């Protein structure tokens, strides 16, 4: 795959749209670290529940906080959740999957059954259980989502790695006396990396959705840390007075998830043009 001058960007509209949205999201999150139009902790009751205006582009909430500033700060939260949850799933899941593929036998069976078992608990249900035990909070929500990601990556990595293990060049590497660990690191992992990146993108989007759900239920990020799901929860009370409060955070979630999903689809097309033609 060369990205030379002949690379036809126009053939990958999903990739471009997705990358653009993701870039905006990350930029907003980065900017919000240093600057937001208004401080997100600033409560000004005098200007509560205002509609959009020149001063407050997206209006203010029930405490007079600037919605745009809150959304910017909330993007930080979503991205952080996505990274940590997917990170947990990716590192542990891929390690398990690689081990299962390299060793086969009992370990393989155990990893697969563990996956079956985890699938019995829907992510939100297991998150509810974990927060029931450990109390609500962003960290617990992230761990719950991350745990659910482990079997997803374990299965994917195992399946893809098994295919790589059956190829000729692995035999050559083995004949050269390389250890299983080195072969995994040098040959198997690079060959499945593309697939994993695509799946990680999709899981990232799912993690944002799951965290938003938990935060909406009051089980995720706790105040005063802004989070999109939490904002929707609070907006519900004031929905007849300030309907837009219940619109913007949801829009932010939907656009972010849509963008990241498109990026994932686009990456898959890029990595596997055959698949793209088959689906088109």
């Amino acid at each position, binding site marked *: 795959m060369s990205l030379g001058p002949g690379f036809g960007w126009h053939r990958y509209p999903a990739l471009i749209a997705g990358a653009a949205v993701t870039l905006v999201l990350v930029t907003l999150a980065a900017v919000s670290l240093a600057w937001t139009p208004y401080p997100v902790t600033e409560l000004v009751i005098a200007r509560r529940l205002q509609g959009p205006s020149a001063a407050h582009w997206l209006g203010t909430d029930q405490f007079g906080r600037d919605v745009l500033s809150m959304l910017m700060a909330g993007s930080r939260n979503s991205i952080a959740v996505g990274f940590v949850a997917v990170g947990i799933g990716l590192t542990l899941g891929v390690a398990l999957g690689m081990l299962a593929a390299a060793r086969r036998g009992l370990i393989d069976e155990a990893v697969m059954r563990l996956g*079956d*078992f985890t*699938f*019995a*608990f*829907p*992510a*939100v*249900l297991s998150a*509810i*259980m974990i*927060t*029931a*035990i450990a109390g609500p909070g962003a960290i617990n929500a992230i761990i719950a989502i991350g745990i659910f990601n482990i079997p997803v990556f374990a299965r994917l990595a195992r399946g893809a790695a098994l295919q790589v293990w059956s190829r000729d060049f692995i035999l050559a590497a083995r004949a050269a006396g390389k250890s299983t660990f080195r072969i995994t690191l040098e040959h198997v992992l690079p060959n499945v990396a593309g697939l994993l990146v695509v799946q990680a993108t999709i899981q990232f*989007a799912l993690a944002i*959705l799951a965290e*938003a*759900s938990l935060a*909406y*239920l009051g*089980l995720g990020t706790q105040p005063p840390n802004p989070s999109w*799901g939490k904002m*929707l929860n609070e*907006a*519900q009370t004031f*929905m*007849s007075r300030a*309907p837009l409060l*219940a*619109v913007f*955070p*949801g829009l932010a*979630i*939907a*656009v972010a*998830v*849509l963008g990241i*999903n*498109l990026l994932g689809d686009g990456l898959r097309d890029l990595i596997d043009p055959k698949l793209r033609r088959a*689906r*088109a």
Partner: protein
Amino acid sequence: MIQFCLRRLATLCVTLIAASAVVFVVMEVLPGDPAVVMLGTEAQPETLAALRKQLGLDRPAPERYVTWLAGFVTGDLGLSQTYRVPVSELIADRLAITGPLALAAIVLSTAIALPLGLFAAARHRRLGDAGVMAFGQLGLAVPNFWFGLLLVLVFSISLGWLPAGGFPGWQGGIGPAMRALILPAVALALPQAAILARVARSAILDAMAEDYVRTARAKGLTRRAALWRHVLRNAMIPIVTIMGLQFSFLLAGAIIIENVFYLPGLGRLVFQAISQRDLIVVKDIVVLLAGTVVFINFVVDLLYAVLDPRLRSFRT
């Protein structure tokens, strides 16, 4: 076929026992004594001990686990610490809302998704197809609870057609109760339908490209007849897989949606139980929901075998 069923049933039981064991152990290591939760910290030691005995908390953990597990068969799931009523009664009450809600959502989403998928496949590479694909992307991106809020904004607050939440109860007549479930069911069903329609579309397209469809056409079947007799049955195999997977999302979604619409169903119950640390209720509901998911997967496996004869003759 019978052998196939039995094998699947055995796996089902093992998974259920493992799941319940995990839940039991997790709840066991939790700090907090249910008796103290019920009576408060100022209770007399004698009263506490009496209650513990009554609740069976004085017996060893393995024994309590087995008793608890047996409760799922006998229907005796213990006493809720906050409501002071048998958990089975609580669950039965709440199930009268969650059950119909989930069922309505499944029926609605299937009824929307399958025709839509068929439509898109028939309009492959044309505008209608692109529309369904875009609808599918939206379904993946829009969180169902926000969609629920939007429905409330439009149909309750602006138009005033349907209630924004709450549940009048079945005893007040079917009509008002059903009205209360319309928006929640739609909020739950539509995002799922969008995803399922995409899956249905590609499953039908894949099946349409198979050689046996060409054989059917060479026999003289019209395009439409080939679609009905040869494509759909084969396309149902991946569709049923996704529907089984979606069921667990649907259960999770129901928990959230019940909170959006203030419906006193299982989801709201488990949620309240968590905040009140009514752990017996949490434990029972979690296992019940996990059991439902596992059971649905079992049903999906059986459906596979019905749809695909290749699986039926599979022996080990």
